[in-house]
């Protein structure tokens, strides 16, 4: 039987997710619960129904076809009761501003489960277009959760000469990493190490170390640390200092410091989930510069 992969989005051209120009495949499912996550719909087995208010024409076509009463309209406001949603997709199909083919628009059920072979056929033309200038990045969610099928896909990519990268928190059983390891050129390591105040800090650290022990064995494999700047979390000196020590210990010399995503609420709103944004008095640009300078001071280019 063909293995299947579940994903919720593909970006055809990203210049921030690995070396050069990347196709980024966002795989469904995550084992962490980062409060700053900007893809909350990636966490469950399948995304909830996404709704983007600015794209809605308020025509009511969704309400007419829904058998569960998910959609209601009052005072030109479209309200959704996702708790009764069966994810049947009829509302998406009926919506004139949504596409069941493009998985985009006012309403969407973005999670797709497809065979590895067909997913490869989908991304192959795009990777051929990027040949020599980049490659594919497997992201998520946590892509390692689908390690078996992912290893097949990554192997196919390598057989065709495409550069591969994988973005992971490193918080996963070692056998997951081992399975995909031969087919990944660059590891984008998410460093969920610890922010110093989480209950399971020791567990996270031991998992991280276990992963790095394995990943740093082969000097040919590139490891790039990825640090999103989340004020109050990843800009704390205790966190940055422990990271510095860790990087020194494992010889990690490349860091991508990622600016705080000011659009982070986007998918919370679309998924109907609450979000606790950072204090809006904080200058996020300033915190970004602080983190970059911290690493530079420690002679790590960021």
């Amino acid at each position, binding site marked *: 039987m063909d293995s299947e992969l579940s994903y919720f989005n593909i*970006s055809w051209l990203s210049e921030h997710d690995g070396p050069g120009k990347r196709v980024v495949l966002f795989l469904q499912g995550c084992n962490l619960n980062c409060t700053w996550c900007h893809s909350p719909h990636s966490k469950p087995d399948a995304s909830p129904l996404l709704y983007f208010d600015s794209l809605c024409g308020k025509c009511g076509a969704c309400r007419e076809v829904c058998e569960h009463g998910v959609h209601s309209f009052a005072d030109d406001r479209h309200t959704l009761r996702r708790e009764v949603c069966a994810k049947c997709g009829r509302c998406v199909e009926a919506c004139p501003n949504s596409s069941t*083919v*493009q998985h985009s628009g006012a309403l969407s059920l973005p999670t797709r489960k497809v065979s590895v072979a067909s997913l490869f056929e989908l991304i192959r033309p795009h990777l051929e277009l990027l040949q020599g200038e980049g490659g594919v990045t497997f992201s998520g969610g946590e892509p390692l959760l689908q390690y078996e099928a992912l290893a097949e896909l990554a192997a196919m990519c390598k057989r065709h000469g495409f550069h591969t990268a994988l973005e992971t928190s490193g918080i996963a059983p070692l056998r997951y990493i081992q399975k995909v390891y031969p087919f990944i050129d660059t590891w984008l390591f998410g460093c969920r190490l610890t922010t110093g105040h989480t209950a399971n800090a020791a567990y996270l650290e031991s998992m991280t170390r276990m992963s790095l022990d394995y990943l740093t064995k082969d000097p040919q494999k590139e490891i790039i640390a990825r640090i999103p700047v989340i004020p109050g979390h990843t800009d704390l000196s205790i966190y940055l200092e422990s990271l510095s020590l860790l990087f020194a210990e494992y010889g990690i010399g490349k860091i991508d410091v990622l600016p705080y995503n000011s659009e982070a609420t986007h998918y919370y709103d679309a998924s109907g989930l609450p979000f606790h944004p950072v204090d809006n008095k904080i200058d996020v640009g300033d915190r970004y510069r602080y983190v970059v300078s911290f690493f530079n001071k420690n002679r790590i280019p960021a």
Partner: protein
Amino acid sequence: MKLREALVKRGFENRAGEWFRKEDLPDVAAMYPDEHVMIRRAYAIDEMLKAMCDARKFGYTHCFEIADGDLLAGTIPMGSNGLGKVFPNYLTEDELRVGSVTNKTEMALLGHNTINYEKVVHYGLQSIIDYAEGRIQDNGLKRVADAYDKTAFYRAVVISCRAVIDYARRFSELALREAKQCTDKVRADELVKMAKICAKVPAGPADNFYEALHGIWLVHCCLHSTMDFMSLGRLDQVLNPYLQKEHNREFARELFENFIIKAAGRLNFSTQYLVEQDHMDYNAALGIHPYYLDQRAGLNNFLQNIIIGGKTPDGADATNDCTYLILEAFRNVNLSTPGIYVRLHKESPEKLFAAVADSIKQTKNLPYILNDDVMIPAMRDALSSGEQDDEKKEMYRKLANDYCVDGCWEPILNAESEWTFGMINGMTILECTLNRGAALSANPALLRGQKLSIDTGELTSYPDLQKALVAQIRFFVDQSALAMCLYYLTSEFVVPSPLVSALFSTCLETGRDKSWGGAKCNLGGTVLGGAPDMINTVSAIKKWVYEKKKYSLPDVISALRFNFTAGDTGDMKMQRMYDSIKVDFFTNSPQFGNDIETNEVARFILDAFHDAVNRSKTLADKVFLDPAGDHDKKIQALRCIAGYYGNALQTELPGFDLKFTAGLGTFEQYNWQGAGNAASAARYSGDPLAPNFTPTSGTWHSNPATLLEAFRELNLNRFAAGVITDICLESDALLERIIKTFIAKQGGMLTVTIASQYYQEIYEIAKAANLIESPAAASEKLLKYADIMVRVGGWNAPFITLPLSHMENYINRPVSSN
């Protein structure tokens, strides 16, 4: 650059007064009523070229002037593919009256070809005159046996070539006069030099780059002034030997920039004065039907392209120093005309790929790209299909390697093929498929709809639909392609081209005009428009009617016919169904360019179309070409059914063949063609069709990778009449990779426009200007956008000059890289 500024400035003014007035030109038919039409046509060429140098009578045309700084003498009078042309009448009253049946007058002249500029610069026109006079005197006239009046042909060649030499001489005299009055020593020297060059070329051979380019310019000028809107061909191949001898490369590049600006001299940048410049008549015909052009869209189309790069006839890479020089000149000048195409192939130098990408980044749209790896095999196979003779096959191989494109993008053989073509509308074909041979008209007086073709029956399954579609495609292809044979011989008696024939293929050797079998090869293209819309609509029907069975076909047909509107019926249930069909056909169906699922349907349609053209060729040969039919009553009966009562074409013209080619595209006609069609997938009734072989505007959601992948699967290397894709990218981030992947994945032809952020803004200004503003106020606002060029199906045009409907279409085009 001063010349360029002056050109743009003039283009914003009212140019109506610059047009020749036909009533002021002599009536050549009245002057020479008893001469052969060929001779009258030649005299008309002479009269036109004389009029252009008659500053006293026709000073208002500004044709006999040399602008300050101009290094190339000679000016083409106003005229364009959209606005028409002006030329002295040379047809008798009887010819004009009978011509009404086939819509042929002097305006029917097709252009759409290239001439042999190598011959012009190497030998000069005087040698052609000498040759023609020799043929009149010796027995050469009898060497090729056919029914043609060869004396008239050679006399016409002599008259028209002399007319060109005289035209150049008049400019030589003018330049000399101006030099004498010129106080600026540098300019006076330039004028003296021009005077010398115009006295020398194109009468005699050129000895250096300046002479060669000037000779070409003068001939181009004369052709375009005398109805023949001929293209320029592979100028890098013609000019490179002269460039190699030229020590001052910068001067050579400046000359070429001057050449581009001169060739663009007829541009209109303002659209406020077009009605008074409309000189089109009903005879701008392809084939025999009045051809209603989208004149506004063709306003600045002059059917003049330059082709660079590619392969030599022997198959080696042809890129040379002049390839880069011409590319640089185009990049510097960045005007919408002439068109510049670069031929690329897998073995083209990396430097050329880089220069092309760099030029597109700079100019946002130049040059356009032809894929040799697709077009050469397409042309070679079309020529040598059924050919057994190895020598001929070898000749076809070389001719195919030397292909170029004419004034839009129709592939032709470089100065060796006469070309004609017919266009068919794929969406009309599909309507007839769905509706038993009738268009999906909403007019109740027409009952089922306007009957256009055969009844292919009700469609109860997808295989039914496929079968009917094949039959309909065959019907429309037969109708278009067979007519090219049927009417092949009419042109010669209305629009012979002695000047072109003097410089074209084997016309001189055979003593035949190009419209009478004079060329080495004759190509008849059938070009299918709206293929992407056909693909989208068949894919949607397949999914929703035959696979998911959500709707019945009659319901879908009804929704398309009535543009998804139940209208006055008040039938809410029906309206809800139409709404649902619309949503599924607009947003929930796979679309060409985005979804690989459409490739199967695309392949089916392209296979059926290509096969239909081949079938037509077999029938055309039997009925119209093969002399055996002259003695076969059945074949004679078939000819009579077509309305043809003569001998086979090969009886009239021994050795003649009309090769059929198939192509995919619309040129600028996508708005025009769609205007008559019912709704379809992702298209409302009357909306434009897809431009050329490009995903329909507004339906393309991802970067071009999926489209390029489709090309690889569609075997485009069989479409010798061309297959072109016009993409508009939001950014140039992937430009070089797109070009290389296009070549590697066997795309046919490509134009790229890097989108401007100002499309919407210009559209708003143009819309307001149409309604309320004075021409001057609108011009002032639009002036700063004059350099934004876009592709209009067959050529480039300044965005500000587009009709509003084309602007709307363009606003939806930009494709994101993501």
